[in-house]
Each structure stands twice: as structure tokens, then as C-alpha cells.
């Protein structure tokens, strides 16, 4: 199953998902109120040490944050020129703190637990026609079809490379998208045949 969740158990796994989400919301609000870089630095250091203590797999995730480096560089430079080094440090520390904190929650909460935790929040949306069962099926379909669609794309890519010697071109996209829509309609028919849409307006 596709998941960013850490396979091995850590102390944070034992904390209920709802508690972690509420803690994250509370700490994020507090971080927005603090402008003192030393205090934000201390908060960042605590979260960072916790991150490192979660093991090698968690430390490997830090590499993924490198994609934000250009943004941080630009933000830091602009802030340094306009409001000075201290304010720039406070803003960058606050952003890093919030991202790492949220990542800690995601890494230590299985997707099903996360879904259960936010289900009460989604319940009122049923008046707009969003029911939890249909959402669960849609989430399951996304997770199931990501590897299937990637495999289909790679097959087309290989065929393209064999003929042209180059990487996949956007020329492959229209036919690929047509295939996705056709596949979606077949899956919908199969679901309806099993009673998924029964009793609902078609």
C-alpha cells in the first residue's frame, strides 16, 4: 500500500491520531503568535531532535524537504533585505517547525487511523451529498490505481523508447488519458453491477 507512514513503531504511534491532530492544530496556532526567533529555534530544535530519534527511515524523509529549499532561499533573502536577519530567521524557523511537526504526525499515523480521526469532521458534509462510504471507496480507488496507471504509463514509455530511443513524450498523453476515462467507466459499471449506486439518483 502507498503510504508515507513509518513501518516500525515509535512512541508517537501510541498517541491517538485525533490527539496528534489536535496537538498539531494547537501548536501551529501558537507558532503563528511567536515572533521571537530564539523561542522558535528552541521549538524547532525539540521537533528536529524528535524527528531524528524516529530512526533512519524518518531521517531519510528529510531529503524530500529539499524540494522546498529554493522557496526558503528566496523567502529568506527577501525578508533579510526588507525586515532584517532576525525577522527572516523567525519566519524560516516557523515554517520549518510547522512542516516538521505535521510530518511527524503523518509519519506516525497509519492512513486508516487518519481517516477515522477526521471522519467526525467530514460527517456534517453529508448534507452536501458527501457520504463517508463513497469517500472511502474513492480513496481506495485512488490508492489502487496509482501503481496500475504508473505501470500502464511505463509500458507505453518502453514501447515509445523502443521505437524512438527517447523518453516518453507528451504525444503519448491523449491516448493514455482516453484509456483512463474508458477504464473509469468500466470500473463504474462494475461497481454499479455490485450494487454500489443502488438507491441513489443516477
Amino acid at each position, binding site marked *: 500500500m502507498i503510504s508515507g507512514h513509518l513501518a516500525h513503531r515509535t512512541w508517537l504511534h501510541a498517541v491517538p491520531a485525533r490527539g496528534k491532530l489536535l496537538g498539531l492544530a494547537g501548536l501551529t496556532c501558537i507558532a503563528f503568535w511567536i515572533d521571537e526567533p530564539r523561542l522558535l529555534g528552541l521549538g524547532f530544535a525539540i521537533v528536529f531532535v524528535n524527528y531524528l530519534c524516529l530512526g533512519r527511515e524518518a531521517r531519510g524523509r528529510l531529503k524530500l524537504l529539499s524540494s522546498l529549499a529554493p522557496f526558503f532561499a528566496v523567502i529568506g533573502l527577501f525578508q533579510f533585505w526588507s525586515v532584517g536577519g532576525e525577522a527572516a530567521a523567525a519566519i524560516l524557523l516557523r515554517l520549518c517547525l510547522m512542516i516538521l511537526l505535521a510530518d511527524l504526525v503523518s509519519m506516525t499515523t497509519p492512513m486508516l487511523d487518519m*481517516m477515522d480521526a477526521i471522519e467526525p469532521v467530514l460527517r456534517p458534509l453529508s448534507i452536501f451529498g458527501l457520504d463517508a462510504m463513497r469517500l472511502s471507496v474513492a480513496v481506495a480507488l485512488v490508492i489502487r490505481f496509482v501503481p496500475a496507471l504508473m505501470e500502464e504509463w511505463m509500458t507505453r514509455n518502453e514501447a515509445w523508447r523502443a521505437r524512438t530511443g527517447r*523518453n516518453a513524450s*507528451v504525444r503519448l498523453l491523449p491516448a493514455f488519458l482516453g484509456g483512463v476515462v474508458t477504464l473509469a467507466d468500466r470500473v463504474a459499471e462494475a461497481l454499479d453491477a455490485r450494487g454500489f449506486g443502488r438507491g441513489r439518483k443516477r
Partner: protein
Amino acid sequence: METRSIVRAALFAALIAALGLVPRIDVPIAAGVPITAQTLGVILAGILLGARVGAASVLLFLFVVALGAPLLSGGRGGIGVFFGPTAGYLIGWIFGSAAAGFLMQKLPIGSIFLRALVASLIGGVFVIYLFGIPYLAFAAGLTLDKAFLAGAVFLPGDILKSILAALVAKSYFASRAPIK
């Protein structure tokens, strides 16, 4: 939402994820410059599926990312992505996809390429930046003009993706009737 729309939204959400995870795609009109095709998937979801189902597919994709699936370009995922300075762009994807889908259906332009190009530029660039820039300004404590400058480095690539989306839409609709 009927079953067909739910499944189309789910499969396009999977497609947006897959396009962000597959290796590079070469773009002939950009002399082989590699691009991440995830935003292209967002724009195409609106243009090909319509405003409602397109926006639903992007919303579903972001929901699965928030649940913890590492499906964003580069393998990022989890609620951490909504706490970064670029979260506004992600929220803008939902409205951008809806705007692109709405304009694709409503614009009184005969040529599919031109209609898709205008829809992509407004939905895929203007609307996404409309959410991305103010949030970047808020999260990073920048003024709006500085936030725009910070985000402007991605503008040429996003315009290029809009042109590509229009080309793909033209080719797609050449063999299929527009989706109702």
C-alpha cells in the same frame, strides 16, 4: 455524485499522482526540457472531466495526500505539505481545475485548441496563482509584490504547461466527444 463521476474523479486523482511520480517526460516544444507533469494533470482533469468532476478529482487527490500518501512530485505527502509556503498553490489547484473546466465548457471559442489554451491559462495559471501568491505572502510574511516575484520563477513553466494542456486537449477531443 453518480458512480461514473466518482470513479472518473478517483482515476484522475490517481492519474495526477502517477504523472508526478513517473520519470521525466520530454516536451518537444521546449527542446527536451524535463517537466513535472502533475500540474498538467490538474489542468487536464478540469478540461477533460468538466468543472465539477475535475475539481472533485483534485480535491480527492489532495485528501489522499493529506492522509499521508507520498503522491506529490518528489514523493512528498502528509499534512506537512499543507503547512509549507506553497500550500496556497495546492488549494488553488482545486479552483484552478474547476475554472479550467468551466471555461472549457462555456467559452464561445470554436477552436478546441484556443478554448483549451485560454481555459488552461486562466484556470491553470491565473487562478492557481490567485491562491498561491497571497498564501505565500501570508506564510512567509512577504508583501504581495515580493511574494509574486518569489513565485514568478515558475511562471514560464506553468505557461508552457498550459500550452501543452491545450495541445493534449486538442488531440484528445479529436477522437472523442467532449465529456458531459
